[in-house]
C-alpha cells in the first residue's frame, strides 16, 4: 500500500499530465463527431460576450462593404418582387407564396474562422431568439452552414468550410444531385462529389441546394463550377465549386427555420421503425 502511495507521489506530475491530456483528447474526439452535446463551444456567456464586444468595434471597418452587399441583395429581391407581382396578377392566386414553409431570422456573425480544417462561426442569436440546432444559415449571396450548438444568447454554426460538413446540392440546370464537401485547401472553393457521369457538366454552371434535407429550402445559391475531374473507371464526377460567398468576409446572415421539419422527421422515423 505504501509503495503504491509512493508511486503516486513520485509520478504525480506525469499522472496529472496523463489525466489532463486524456480529458483534452476526449473533448477533441467529441468535437469531431457532429453535434453531440458539446461542453467546449464559443456559444457561452463569456466567449460570446467578448466576441460581441470585438464585433461591435470591428463592424465599423466593414460597414461600406456590408452596405454594398445589402444594397445588391435589395436590388435582386426587388427585381424578383416585381416579376412576382406580375405573375400573381396574371395567374390570379398562388397560395405557395403566402404560407411559406420557411421562416427567416436575421443574425450577425460575431466570430468567423476559415483558416483551419474544421471551421465554425458564432452568431449573436441563441435559444432565446428561437434558434435551435439543425437550422440552416445563409447570407445574401448563398449558403454558409448549419447551426450545431446554441446557448441562451449565442449559437455556433458548422461552416461549409468544415471537413465534417456534407450538404445536399444539385446542378441548377439538370437536377443531378451530389454532396457538397470541403478539402481544406481554399476557403473560396468547395467540392461537389458523387455527381453521376451522365450529368451534363459545364464550367460556369450554377450549383444550388437540393432541397432533399429539411434544413435548406430548395434552390439556395452555392456557387459555380470551376473545374471538374472524372477519374478513369469512376462513375462520378468530382467538381470544384467556386463559392458565391466570400467566406472570409461575413456579417449579416439569415437563419432558416423549416416549420415542417419536425413533422417530416417524425414521419420518416415512423417509417424507419416499421421497417425494422
Amino acid at each position, binding site marked *: 500500500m505504501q509503495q503504491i502511495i509512493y508511486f503516486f507521489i513520485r509520478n*504525480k*506530475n*506525469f499522472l*496529472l*499530465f496523463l489525466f*489532463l*491530456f486524456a*480529458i*483534452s*483528447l*476526449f*473533448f*477533441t*474526439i*467529441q*468535437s*469531431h463527431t457532429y453535434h453531440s452535446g458539446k461542453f*467546449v*463551444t*464559443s456559444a*457561452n456567456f*463569456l*466567449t460570446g460576450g*467578448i*466576441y460581441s464586444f*470585438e464585433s461591435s468595434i470591428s463592424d465599423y471597418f466593414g460597414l461600406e462593404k456590408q452596405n454594398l452587399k445589402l444594397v445588391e441583395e435589395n436590388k435582386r429581391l426587388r427585381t424578383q418582387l416585381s416579376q412576382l407581382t406580375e405573375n400573381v396578377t396574371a395567374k390570379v392566386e398562388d397560395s405557395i407564396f403566402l404560407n411559406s414553409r420557411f421562416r427567416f431570422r436575421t443574425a450577425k456573425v460575431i*466570430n468567423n*474562422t*476559415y*483558416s*483551419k*480544417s*474544421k471551421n*465554425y462561426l*458564432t452568431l449573436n442569436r441563441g435559444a432565446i431568439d428561437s434558434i435551435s440546432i439543425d437550422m440552416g444559415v445563409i447570407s445574401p449571396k448563398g449558403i454558409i452552414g448549419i447551426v450545431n450548438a446554441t446557448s441562451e444568447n449565442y449559437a*455556433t454554426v458548422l461552416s461549409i468550410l468544415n471537413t465534417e460538413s456534407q450538404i445536399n446540392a444539385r446542378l441548377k440546370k439538370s437536377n443531378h444531385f451530389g454532396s457538397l464537401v470541403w478539402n*481544406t485547401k*481554399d*476557403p473560396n472553393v468547395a467540392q461537389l462529389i458523387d455527381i453521376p457521369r451522365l450529368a451534363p457538366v459545364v464550367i460556369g454552371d450554377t450549383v444550388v441546394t437540393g432541397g432533399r434535407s429539411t434544413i435548406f429550402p430548395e434552390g439556395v445559391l452555392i456557387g459555380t463550377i470551376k473545374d471538374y475531374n472524372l477519374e478513369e473507371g469512376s462513375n462520378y464526377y468530382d467538381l470544384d465549386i467556386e463559392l458565391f460567398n466570400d467566406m*472570409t468576409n461575413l456579417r449579416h446572415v439569415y437563419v432558416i427555420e423549416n416549420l415542417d421539419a419536425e413533422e417530416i422527421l417524425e414521419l420518416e422515423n415512423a417509417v424507419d421503425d416499421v421497417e425494422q
Partner: protein
Amino acid sequence: MLNNDFFINTVRFIALVLLQILLLNNINFMGYINPYAYITFILVFPLNANKSLLIFLAFLLGLTIDMFMDSGGVHAAACSFIAYIRPWILKFSFGVSYEHNTIRIGKTSMAQRFSYVGVMVLLHHFILFSLEIFSLEHILLIVKSTLFSGIFTILIVLGLIILFSRKN
C-alpha cells in the same frame, strides 16, 4: 513576493488570451497562417514554481483558447504536453544551471533562448495541428502548418520576451 507572482501571472494569463483571440487569430497571413503566441505564458512561467501547478494552468489556458476557437480540446492537449516536458527542454537548452535558480529567461544568451523557445513552440504546434487535422493522410499539411505557424510564433514570442523582460 508570492502575491506579486500570483498577480503578475493572472494578468499575463488574461492579457495573452485576449491578445490571441482578438488580434492574433485574425491575422490569417497568406490565408491560413496564424501565430499562437499565448503559449508565452507557459514559457516564462517562473522556472522554480510548482510543476503540477504549471501543468494544470497550461491545461486551463489551452481550454480557454479552445472555447473561443471551437476547436474541442486540441489547444488544451498541446499546452499540457509542453508544460509537462518543460523541465527537460529547460535542461536541454540551458544546461543544469537552471536547476539552481540562477537564470532568468530575459537574461540568457540569444542562442540558448532561441533553442528553448523554438523546441517548445514546434512541439506545441506539431501536437496542435496533428490533433486538429487528425488524419495521417494530411501529414504534409500538418508539417507545413507547424513550420509556417511555428516560425511566426517564435518571432512573436521572442519579441514579447524582449519587450517585457525586466531590466535590472
